[in-house]
């Protein structure tokens, strides 16, 4: 079907109006999008140090930890200092610390396991803690001297 010149003229106008509308609306959409992005996005360079730390993740490898075995559980200690301190303890004292602080056992439970009374375990535990404290303080003061 051939269109009359008037109809063609009408289509030309319709097309022009439609395209201008489309472009105007799309531009509006764009501006709205930019405004929303501006509101929600921020530049890496403008983040505070604290916020940047939240974005990073470090891989953990078994070799980064000091490992201790107690009652079939493998206990990984991340802090080098604490790991060293624990390694330097006699085995029995280390076991008390591991059981008390990593397995959440009470003095009484530990005592029952070894046939000792609660107060003995308590004494061992507090003295071992002091020993660890002393060791860590020594290492730290050595580091400061260096």
């Amino acid at each position, binding site marked *: 079907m051939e*269109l009359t010149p008037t*109809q*063609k*003229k*009408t*289509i*030309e*106008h*319709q*097309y*022009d109006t*439609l*395209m*201008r509308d*489309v*472009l*105007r609306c*799309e*531009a509006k959409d*764009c*501006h709205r999008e*930019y405004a929303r992005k501006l509101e929600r996005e921020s530049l890496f360079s403008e983040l505070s140090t604290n916020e940047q730390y939240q974005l990073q993740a470090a891989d953990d490898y078994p070799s980064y930890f000091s490992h201790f075995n107690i009652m079939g559980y493998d206990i990984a200690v991340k802090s080098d200092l604490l790991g060293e301190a624990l390694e330097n303890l006699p085995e029995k004292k280390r076991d008390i610390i591991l059981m008390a602080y990593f397995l959440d056992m009470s003095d009484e439970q530990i005592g029952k396991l070894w046939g000792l009374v609660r107060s003995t375990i308590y004494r061992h535990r507090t003295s071992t803690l002091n020993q660890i404290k002393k060791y860590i303080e020594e290492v730290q003061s050595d580091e400061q001297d260096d």
Partner: protein
Amino acid sequence: MSKTTKQKARRLLPFPVIAAAVGGDADAMNAILRHYSGYITTLSTRPMYDEYGNCHMRVDEGMRRRLETKLIIKTLDFKLA
């Protein structure tokens, strides 16, 4: 009065070009893009800030491309009565 003269002054795309572009003709599509390039440039001009905080009116290339794409999509969708 001024409005009508302005509208009269607006050049319209000839019907054969529209028909060819709707039919998928690349040259006609380029002609249409050229025809609307001025309007698109005007629409995609926005203030940009440089690192010193100075404001410049610049054409946002990404936005220009987006408007051109939209124009092409809508042209292909256009129903010739």
